[in-house]
């Protein structure tokens, strides 16, 4: 490496100064939180209820184990959400008059499922459809609860993909059509690959949200981490298991959100 330029030396010094100030002020805030919060009169009670080391140690392994169910539910929902979202996005883009009902259905679907609270859909589908008298195992809350998640999240994903499709300039379509490509091939080889790439960050954020909403399935029976934490809370009359669950969630969602932001920045940079 060659000797640093004058500008590099200047910038290095500036950066060091800025880092120093940032570190000092962060420390000051942390220290004051650590010192001041315990001075609050109720701190001891809060600590015993929420940050109880003994309860934490006893429940954390069980919580981790329950989290595997969250991961499994996420793992089978995510690809189905992606597939359904894509289908609906394409259906909303149909211009053939004969297929107008399909398009209408796709529009109604996205409007309805984006307009409902997830938990409501989970209740309605998770208890409602099996209540019609389906035999086991087809009435399983895993199936219908997952379907509820898939329906809601695919509606969001469809909208994101559609916005991606619309963000691709008309000139790309014109260029493809002028070469004699069919409408379907134009979508498949020219528009979609660009559109999907563009919406990766937005979809990443949706999937982070999905990872959290998987916990809502516990309302209709499955004992995943949120429910397991509730059971521990009830047995021990202590909220620490929820803190344990929160830590496990954060360990997954913070890196995932950071990664989505990183992708978003890259996309922004390459587009400008």
């Amino acid at each position, binding site marked *: 490496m060659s000797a640093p330029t004058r500008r590099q030396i200047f910038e290095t010094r500036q950066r060091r100064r800025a880092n120093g100030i940032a570190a000092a002020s962060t420390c000051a805030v942390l220290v004051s939180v650590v010192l001041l919060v315990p001075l609050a009169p109720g701190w001891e009670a809060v600590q015993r209820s929420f940050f109880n080391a003994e309860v934490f140690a006893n429940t954390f392994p069980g919580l981790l184990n329950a989290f595997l169910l969250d991961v499994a539910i996420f793992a089978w929902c995510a690809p189905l959400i992606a597939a359904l979202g894509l289908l609906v996005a394409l259906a909303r883009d149909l211009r053939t008059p004969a297929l107008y009902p399909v398009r209408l259905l796709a529009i109604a679907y996205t409007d309805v499922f984006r307009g409902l609270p997830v938990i409501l859909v989970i209740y309605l589908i998770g208890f409602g459809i099996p209540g019609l008298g389906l035999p086991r195992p087809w009435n399983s809350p895993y199936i219908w609860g997952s379907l509820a998640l898939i329906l809601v999240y695919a509606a969001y994903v469809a909208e994101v993909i559609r916005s991606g499709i619309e963000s691709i300039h008309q*000139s*790309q379509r014109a*260029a*493809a059509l002028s*070469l*004699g*490509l*069919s409408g379907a091939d134009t979508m498949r080889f020219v528009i979609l690959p*660009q559109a999907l*790439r563009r919406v990766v960050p937005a979809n990443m954020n949706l999937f982070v949200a999905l990872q959290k909403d998987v916990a809502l399935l516990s309302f209709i029976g499955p004992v995943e981490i949120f429910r397991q934490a509730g059971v521990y809370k009830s047995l021990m009359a202590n909220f620490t298991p929820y803190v344990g669950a929160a830590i496990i969630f954060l360990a997954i969602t913070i890196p995932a959100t950071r990664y989505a932001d990183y992708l978003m920045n890259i996309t922004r940079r390459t587009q400008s």
Partner: protein
Amino acid sequence: MPTLSLHDVRKSFGGNRVLDGIDLTVRTGEMICLIGASGSGKSTLLRCMNLLEPIDDGRILLDGADISEPGLDPQPIRARIGMVFQSYNLFPHMSALDNVMLAPRRVRGLTREALRGPCAALFERFGLSDRMAHYPDQLSGGQQQRVAIIRALAMEPEIMLFDEITSALDPELVGEVLDVLRDLRGTGMTMVLATHEMGFARDLADRICFLDQGRICEEGPPSEIFSRPREARTRAFLSRVLQGGMAG
């Protein structure tokens, strides 16, 4: 033998009459340059010829067959007519070679293996042999526009339409693209160009059409149009654009 002919073609966008009765015949091997002020309808005319825009009235005949028939499948027609755009419109997610191969593979059903030879020859011919694997954003404007031309040529079209393909280029890159057009002219390709390059049009065109407010106001060989324009509007337009451009 006439290849492509337009008869009383009309086109409006909303209330805006953009093509107002165009009659034009493009003969095999001929090179026609469309000139005219911005907004006079040059791009629209080219897009209508390629069926990217449906026309409101009139007819377009290709080898005698009416291709402007409403309800006709435009796909096979478009495959016979190549088009190159001002803004290149390469597919940014594909390498230069894939850009060129996509349509022949999907429309003409050729395999990559079958296409490799002819495509390589095209890249070679336009001086881009070492750029086949590059992505559009790794190419200069002039290189991108040449790839766009290769992409259209790979479909082996009967007619090529060019819409101001040098307008978006830095001045020093214009030459390399015009050289490509010269090369094509030499092979006898039938071409229609919308252009602001008056010098180029005068040197190479068989015919110049001056468009004004959606009509062909005057047409004829370059020697006539540039030296003895009959219409007052043609004279006004030419004096305006030739002030700077032609001298250099």
